[in-house]
């Protein structure tokens, strides 16, 4: 195991599910991490916003059995500690099994800012949604929409069933996206040994040949399909329909697509079963 003193800039952050322990993030990290010599950092955040709720006398917890009870601060703390320990155990076991260099941290603070802070300068932030119940997922993703405003590395919202799906969809809205979402998508496709489908925006369509050539330079042997779509069409329902039609494993979008549409990720996650990656604005190494 590596220590916290190791170079976090080279880390791939896994924001492990704060609600239920899971290991789907690691499953896909095997594809994206192996061969890249990156430190894998498992991050569990004890959300102070949640803890603040427990300070409120009127706060109530409705548990999954349907019972309602006062939200007790001490009990919540205990639950979070237990959850952190359980997640750590799973993370370390799985990372060791996969032979990935790794470390694990538990941080306390506001969820979004802690995530943003930890991910700054990292290669990839994986947000594991695998085991989240749809209701909790919805709330959580809504909270994470603020991340879209931050300058973050590639952010992957990982869904259950990563290994299924036969293609990676990449939105190339602008020729410059080749270096961001294009490259990130190539890496995912190559790691999973699956095809890549390019969704070209209006501005990219005239450069499709160059885009394909560039991607081939990155090592992608086969681009099975090039879809043409206008930027105005890149709405969640259209993308979701494409993802379903293509049996997509992941949909990779450039960050600027989400800037004007913070709810896009939430909508995509609602409408599709595939994972969603928001590519960093700056080219990744």
């Amino acid at each position, binding site marked *: 195991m590596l220590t916290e003193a190791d170079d976090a800039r080279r880390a791939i952050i896994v924001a492990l599910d704060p609600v239920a322990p899971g290991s789907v993030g690691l499953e896909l990290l095997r594809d994206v991490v192996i061969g890249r010599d990156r430190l894998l950092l498992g991050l569990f955040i004890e959300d102070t916003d949640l803890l603040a709720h427990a300070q409120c006398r*009127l706060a*109530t*917890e409705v*548990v999954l059995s349907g019972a309602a009870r006062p*939200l007790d601060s001490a009990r*919540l703390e205990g639950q979070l500690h237990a959850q952190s320990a359980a997640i750590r155990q799973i993370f370390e076991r799985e990372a060791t099994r996969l032979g990935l260099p790794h470390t694990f941290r538990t941080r306390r603070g506001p969820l979004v800012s802690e995530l943003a802070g930890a991910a700054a300068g990292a290669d990839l932030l994986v947000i594991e949604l695998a085991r989240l119940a749809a209701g*909790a997922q919805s709330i959580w993703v809504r909270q994470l929409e603020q991340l879209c405003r931050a300058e973050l590395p590639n952010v992957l919202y990982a869904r259950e069933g990563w290994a299924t799906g036969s293609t990676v969809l990449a939105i190339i809205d602008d020729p410059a996206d080749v270096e961001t979402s294009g490259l990130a998508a190539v890496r995912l496709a190559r790691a999973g040994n699956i095809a890549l489908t390019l969704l070209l925006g209006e501005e990219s369509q005239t450069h499709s040949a160059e885009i394909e050539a560039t991607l081939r330079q990155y090592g992608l042997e086969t681009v099975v399909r090039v879809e043409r779509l206008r930027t105005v069409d890149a709405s969640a329902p259209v993308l979701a329909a494409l993802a379903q039609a293509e049996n997509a494993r992941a949909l990779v979008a450039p960050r600027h697509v989400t800037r004007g549409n913070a709810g896009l990720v939430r909508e995509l996650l609602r409408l599709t079963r595939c994972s969603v990656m928001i590519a960093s604005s700056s080219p990744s190494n």
Partner: protein
Amino acid sequence: MPTDKFATDRLQPLAAESLYKHCDPKTFSFGTTAELAELDIAVGQQRALSALEFGVRMTGDGYNLFVLGRDGSLRRRIVQEYLDSLKPETAPSDWCYVNNFAEERKPVALRLPAGKGTKLRLDVANVVDELLAAIPAAFESEHYRNQIAEITQEYEERHRATMDALQEEAQQHDVSLVPTPHGFAIAPTRDGKLLSDDDFEKLSDKEKASTTKAMEAMTAKLRAHIEELPEWHKQRRERIKALNREVTELAIRNPFVELTASYTELPDVLRFLEAMREDVLAHAPDFQPEESRPTVLGLDPARSLQRYQVNVLVEQPEEGGVPIVYEGNPTYQNLLGRIEHLPQLGALVTDFSMIRPGALHRANGGYLILDADRLLTEPYAWNSLKRTLFEKAIRMESLGQQLSLVTTVSLEPDSIPLHCKVILLGSRFLYFLLCELDPDFHELFKVAADFENRIDRTDDNVVLYGRLIATLAKREALLPLTPSAVARIIEQSSRLLGDAEKLSTRLRDVSDLIRESDYWARRADSDTIHADHVQAAIDAQIHRLDRLRSEMHEAIHRDDILIDTRQTKVGQVNGLSVIDLGRLSFGQPTRITANVNIGDGKIVDIERETELGGPIHSKGVLILSSYVSSRFAPERPLSFAASLVFEQSYGGVEGDSATLAETCALLSALANVPIRQTLAITGSMNQHGTAQVIGGVNEKIEGFFDVCKSRGLSGDQGVLIPVDNVKHLMLRSDVVEAARAGQFAIYPIATVDQAITLLTGIDAGQRDRDGLFPDDSINGRVEKRLVELAELRREFDQSRKDGFES
């Protein structure tokens, strides 16, 4: 008075020709037995064969057979050959056990036409193999995954939409809704920030009430939503289950359609296949690859698919034929089958695939041959067989369960209807014992096939017997026999039976002799078996077994056992006995003595007094006593006391063949006339003094001959035998030759008078017109002595009486 068949003065020894009945090789017209066609080995068994035919063809209840006869009669082979020769009237069936999917403890029995059982097993196994590929493929298809995803997504979407709506509503009412590790937290907010307790206290009562009301409303709505989640999950599971069934049904449709098409004529099989199809639909996950199947530690996951196996219990040849089964070890389990168990997680488990057939299963539709004595000595076997025959169904029950020896789960397989004739092979003794003691026996074994021990040695039968010998030799690929060898075997057959006019049907002995003759012939590099080889085999058989005989003869030779063969003695006679060693019997002379004193007419049988004499021997002594009392001094009470004993006999004495000898010893003692020890005598006797036939006559004569010969034949030695035993004589060639040379004599006697005359050289004597025996005759002397003893006794009694009175 006894009938005097021969006048005493006409008593002559038998001619040598009477001592052995030769079989003339010229009777046979073949060069060697290789030229002869095979013959049914059931020679002379017409009675048994007709009973067998009747029992086999009779269709009513209880017409099973008991084949009775002596060991070695090759009954089993004859029965088997007879059954083999039958043309099957009904085709036997295959029987299988398959899983009862509704109640696994009660496996289902399936009846199929011959040869179809294995086909069904293979067909079902192939379908299972096919399903192992088809079902996972169906569940891995995009179509299936999409449908599952659609169902899941639909419910997730409903949940998500509800939560989104709740969150929207919460925001509108200044309530925060966030997930916790175990559910959701709700707290009041103002302007998007949590409302602290202090800030809450600062609110007006109306605002407080409003906030509290909003919190309570949200809590209620959230609870209502969470409480309906289990129902949603249930609906989702049921839809997935229905989808799984639909997908499985699609995957298995073709394999099952093809499978059932082959069995449309067999409704039971179709029912099983339908039940199997339903079970596959309900247990599709069992067909997933092993690694993805849920397993329990220690349990073999492959076993879950074993429930689709077909356990072919009995498989009959497709080309037909009646099953004829011989079960040499008729234990309960070997008869009715067994249910095996397998240790699993420390317990013994079983299922239909571990049902094993018994002989009754294998013989169903045909015949089951069993040895009765073995059957009766196996615990629970006889009663179970009877129960099965009464029920006409094979009902398998674990013996351990029956006896409460095991408490593990066992099976109650379907009974299998029984259509089988059971044929028991046993001795006559056993047959009559069962008739007497088991009331069920007559109900179940109504036909007795009684095998003859012997057949007449007629010319026709001799020829037939020759062919029988040829058949036995051919079937075992033995060397062919010459006519002289066949003749010698026929002679030995008579000798084994102890009857010159009969032939033995104890074919095992005949087979053994042919086999051993073959050995000696091959050893002599002969390509045929000659009479010499047969004789060598007979001599070797005797030599292998006669150690005891040699020792006893040596004891006589060394006078350890006192047998006089030269002098004369009063009250002493050479009797003859037979010692049976199983495969060899031999004769042995025994000194019998009698002592006489005054007494009350009682004859003491020392053998009986010492409990060494059997009841038949005692009966003989009582007959002797009756003879003496009725023959002599009929008007006076017998006034003597006599004792009879077999000298130097330390084992039991049984049989009445010494009665004549004992009578002669007693008469000699009463008459005080010595008996010639050069002679020996054997024979039974009735109350009138008539000699009666005895067994083992050949061995007895040879036994005395051997003793005499070892001491040197004097020319006046011989044996007295009942005249009715002459027809049994098949004496050894050296005895015959000695008789021919006048060195040894065999006297046939009809009465005790003839015997005592020969033994003493003095006429026995007949009563004259006055009813008196001649004074110098044996009988006259005996009567005179008895009168004297009576007088002495009268005087003795009178003196005792006088003594008392004085």
